Each structure stands twice: as C-alpha cells, then as structure tokens.
C-alpha cells in the first residue's frame, strides 16, 4: 500500500507542475551531464592507460638494490624496508635476468616477463640520420607483455621473427627517415655499426615512443653493446593491472630490485586526468545546485499555498513528521524521475559523443571521442543530486512541520 504521505506529496506536486519542471529539468541536466563528463574523461584516461600498458607493461623491474642492505631487509618486514628506502643505493640494470624471471613464477598475478636491453643509437637511412633508442627483445616474450602485435601498421611481425637482422621501427621515426618496409638501415652504437632491414613499422599512438623506439632481436643488441649478459630492465605484464602497486612492493622486497608499477610511472598523467575529471564534474554540478535551489523555491511556495491543508492534515492526526515527509517525498519524486531520466539522458549523450569523429594523437591515438560506461559514474551523479536536493528541501519541509494548526486557521502563521 502506498503511504498516505506519498499520495499527498504526489498530489501537491502535480498541482505545481510548472514550478517542479524547472527543478526536474535541472536535475536531469545535472545528473546527465555529470555522467557525460565522467564518461569522456574516464574514456580518455582509459585509452591512455591501455596505450601505456601496451607499450611498457604493468611493472618494470630495474636497478638492483645494493648488497649492503640485504641483511637488514631480510631481517625485517617489508614496511621497515620501505622506511629505509631513502638510504637505499641502486645499481643500474638487472644482472641476472633469468634468476629474476624464475623467481617471478611464484607471483600468481604475473602473466608474462620480458627481459629488455636498451641502448642509445644513431640510425641512418638513405635519406638521413636520427638519434634513437634500440630495445633488444625476445619477440615471443615481449608479445606477452605488450601490445606490439597489434601495433604493427606496415609489414609483418612474421618477417621480423624470421630475420635475425630485422628491425621494428616506430611510425614517426620511419616517416622522418622516409623508411618503408624492406628498406635497409645502418644502426650505430658505441662505434660499432651494423646493417638491419625494416621488417615492420609499428605505431603505439604515443608520439615519444613512435619517434624514438626501434625493436631488435636481443642477441643483435648484445653484440652491438658488447654485453653478453644482463638486461636493462624486465617488463612485466599482470592479469590484474590494478594490483600492480601491491605486486611491485612485494617484488621489490623479495627480488631485491627496484620495481615500479605503472600507476607510479605515469603518475603525473594520471593526476592530470583525475584533475580534469574532478573539475568537469564540479562544473556540471552547477546544474544540480540550480535544481536544489529550484526545489527549495518550489517547496517553499507550496508550503505557503498549502498552509490550510497542513492545518487540516494536522487536525486529522497527521504528525509533524508526516508533514516533513510529505514535503521530502515531493523532492523524492522529482529526484526519482530526475535520476532515471537523467541517467538515460546521460547514457544517450555519452553514446552520441562516442560517435563523434575526432582524430587525436600525441599520448594516445584515437579516431573518435573516447567514452566508457561505468555504473559508478551513474551512482556518483545520482548521489550528488540526491544529497544536494534533499538538503535544500529539508528547510521548507521542516518549516512546514513547525507550523501550528491554531496559528494557521486564525491566519497568523508566519
């Protein structure tokens, strides 16, 4: 059975449709646009995150911690170890990658590990010479920790796999050198130089990477750098990337090497996205604020118009709290409709925005507006509206409840 208070609320409300409409439409706008801003900012954050995970993996292990700390760390818990971190000394690179890779098998969340040897080079095409970075990889390992397989835009990964002197060149670098698949280049490092063939061209969308990175087979890089063992870093991919900070902390403690999760590595960018999300969210909350002011106004008006009805209700045994509820229910009805319509409106606009063609590159590559659908955005939008409108409604609702029936019937109620 519908509560009598809700019935009365509904009837009061429908008698004031036009005034309510203002509050309702602002609630719809507030909820809807909040959802849209969250959907787009998170959409871009999401593709940015996926791009970077696809290039650099979830965790990177590099730099062995200096031995003098070993006994201390072994004795204490990892907390203690971190407390000491300031004083820890690092030795660049991973000297025994295979030992670490074996140890990483104990980490259930680890999906793949790739040992990478990096070096600065100069690459020369028939057109010109550029500075670049070479990354020596074992292709099969690296495919498991990156999206390299999906980033190929020209040529075939197969050709790289089969050619010892094959090279994978970033799109921007290839353009600068006017390279095409099958062209040969000379790569020089530390006075040593060698000829390679462009097996394929990749594009990550992250311009810095596409401008400098060249992937070569690990043995080639070893001999160019005259480094028969060791790696610059280990790139790790996880089943659940969100857990990277915890896993990295454990790796650092167990493996005695610095381990950096992607959240820390990309901290500055992630903070930019978060700031953007918060600021756009606050901006559209203005609509919700207007909705709550409009609701305040409408309810205050209804209280004035319905004082006699309030007296009648009170004379029939309706309590003060019933009167409060009648007015809060009115806000509740507007909020309920506003939340549903606002959420649908938000989802609809999100979909429309997602259709907008938009060519973006720089830190990621996309050909349309990025959006994601996350129930938490809807919950936050509706939660904000509920809190703001309800707080604004409390004042007229309580005022209505305070009215004395005797004052009302004599016409001396304030």
């Amino acid at each position: 059975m519908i509560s009598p208070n809700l019935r009365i609320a509904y009837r009061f409300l429908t008698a004031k449709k036009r005034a309510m409409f203002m509050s309702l439409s602002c609630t719809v706008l507030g909820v809807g646009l909040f959802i849209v801003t969250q959907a787009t900012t998170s959409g871009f954050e999401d593709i940015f995150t996926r791009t970077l995970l696809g290039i650099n993996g979830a965790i990177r292990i590099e730099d062995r911690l200096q031995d003098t700390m070993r006994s201390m760390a072994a004795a204490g818990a990892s907390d203690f170890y971190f407390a000491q971190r300031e004083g820890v000394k690092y030795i660049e690179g991973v000297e025994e990658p295979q030992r670490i890779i074996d140890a990483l098998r104990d980490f259930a969340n680890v999906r793949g590990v790739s040992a990478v040897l990096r070096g600065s080079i100069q690459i020369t095409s028939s057109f010109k010479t550029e500075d670049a970075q070479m990354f020596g990889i074992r292709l099969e390992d690296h495919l498991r920790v990156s999206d390299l397989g999906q980033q190929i835009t020209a040529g075939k990964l197969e050709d790289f796999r089969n050619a010892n002197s094959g090279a994978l060149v970033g799109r921007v670098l290839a353009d600068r050198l006017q390279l095409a698949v099958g062209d040969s280049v000379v790569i020089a490092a530390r006075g040593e130089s060698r000829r390679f063939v462009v097996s394929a061209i990749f594009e990550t969308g992250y311009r810095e990477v596409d401008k400098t990175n060249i992937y070569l087979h690990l043995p080639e890089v070893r001999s160019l750098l005259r480094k028969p063992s060791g790696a610059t870093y280990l790139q790790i991919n996880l089943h659940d990337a969100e857990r990277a900070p915890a896993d990295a902390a454990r790796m650092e403690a167990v493996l005695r090497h610095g381990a950096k999760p992607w959240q820390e590595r990309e901290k500055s960018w992630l903070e930019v996205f978060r700031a953007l999300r918060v600021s756009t969210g606050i901006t559209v909350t203005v609509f919700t604020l207007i909705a709550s002011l409009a609701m305040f106004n409408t309810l205050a008006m209804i209280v004035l118009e319905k004082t006699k009805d309030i007296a009648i209700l009170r004379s029939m045994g309706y309590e003060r709290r019933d009167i409060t509820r009648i007015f809060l229910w009115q806000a509740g009805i507007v909020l309920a409709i506003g939340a549903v319509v606002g959420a649908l409106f938000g989802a609809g606009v999100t979909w429309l925005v997602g259709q907008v063609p938009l060519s973006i590159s720089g830190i990621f590559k996309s050909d349309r507006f990025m959006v994601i659908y996350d129930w938490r955005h809807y919950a936050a939008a509706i939660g904000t509206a509920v809190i703001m409108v309800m707080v604004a409604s409390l004042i007229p609702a309580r005022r209505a409840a305070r009215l004395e029936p005797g004052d009302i019937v004599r016409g001396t109620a304030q």
Partner: protein
Amino acid sequence: MSAAGPVAPGEVALRCTDLHRYLGRDEGRVHVLKGVSFEARRGQVYAIVGPSGCGKSTLLYLLGLLDQPDGGQIEINGRVMSNTDDAARTAARGEHIGFVFQFHFLMLEFSALENVMMPMRKLGRLAPAEMEARARHLLDAVGLGAKTHRLGTQLSGGEQQRVAIARALANQPTILLADEPTGNLDVKNSGLVFDLITRLAKEQGQAVILVTHNPEIAQRCDHTRPMRDGLFVG
C-alpha cells in the same frame, strides 16, 4: 473501534475548566476567552451560540487541541490534554476528535472520497477496502453518494461542508466539533446534516459540540450555551 466502544452514554467526553486565551501581540493583545468552563457528555448535542467575534471559534480550536490555552485545563475522555506535548495532542486529535472548520473545508486537489479516507489512512485501523466502503457510506449519509469522485474544486460550498462533516466522522471520534456546520447549507440539507449528526451522537455515543447562528438548529440541540464576549452567559 475502541474510541467508540461500549461506553455508557452520559459519560463526560470533554471537560474544560477556566480556559483563558489571549490573541495578538503587544498593544493588539486581546483577552478573547475569559475563563470558560464547559462539559460535554456522550450522546448529547451542544450548541454554542453568540454574536460574531465573541470567541466561539477560538474556544472550539482549544477544545479540538489545535491551539493551546494561556490558562485552564482541557480533559479528553478523562485525560488532561492541555499540558501534553504535540505528539500526544496530535494522536488524540486523530483518535478522539473530529473537527469541521468554519472556512476552508477540504483539501481541494483530492476527491471527496479521498478527503474522507485521509484520516482513516493516517490512523491505519482499517484495510484499504474497508476504508473505502466506510467513506462511501459516510458520503451517502451526507447525501453525496453520487459525487464521491468529484475533486474538492468541483464541489459547491455546501457540498464541501458536507464532505468535511463526513471526514470528521471518519475515525468514529468520541467528540465531534463543528464550527457552523450548516452555515452554507439550504434548509433541506442543513436539516439532513443535522439529523445525521444527532443520529450518530445517539447511536455511537458521541459528544457533539457545534457552533451555530441558526436558532432553529440551536433549538433542536440537547443543550444551548450562549456566549458573549469570551464567557458563557446564562
């Protein structure tokens, strides 16, 4: 209905002693009720008569627990109500008292039927179907059986007044307070309404207190209390 239980008619349902009420503020402060004492028994109909402005409505609001006296005491069915809190007075209004206002009778956005069901819904003693049946019965009794679904705005002043009487009777109160209940009615309907009220008073043992300017009606009541300038006279 416990309120209208098998009580011997004649028992005192309402008693007030030495009621004082001032209205207005500062220089405008008026001593409206100057020590009114009064007693109403079940099954009896009382008429309060007097010139306009003598304080009849003011007294009725106090008796209906809608207002609080500045002095004196009000007992409802043996319980002193004048110094209790708002919650207790509200509960007593819903359970024991039916009130018919002098002006503004109905909640106009609601149908006649909904108006009559309103106090029953709050009290919550009946199932929804029983509430509706009782409301229809009461509207029939005041001669509005055919207009149960009219909104308040679609009823004439007299019709509204009759709906208000039906509503005041909804919870079978022990005390019915009515401020000019027949003021807007023609001879036929005022007779009809008055007969209904007196019949119920006899059948259910209600104490009925009504304010009226109609000498004919006043004469047909069991008791008439003339009022002048804030006091009962004679």
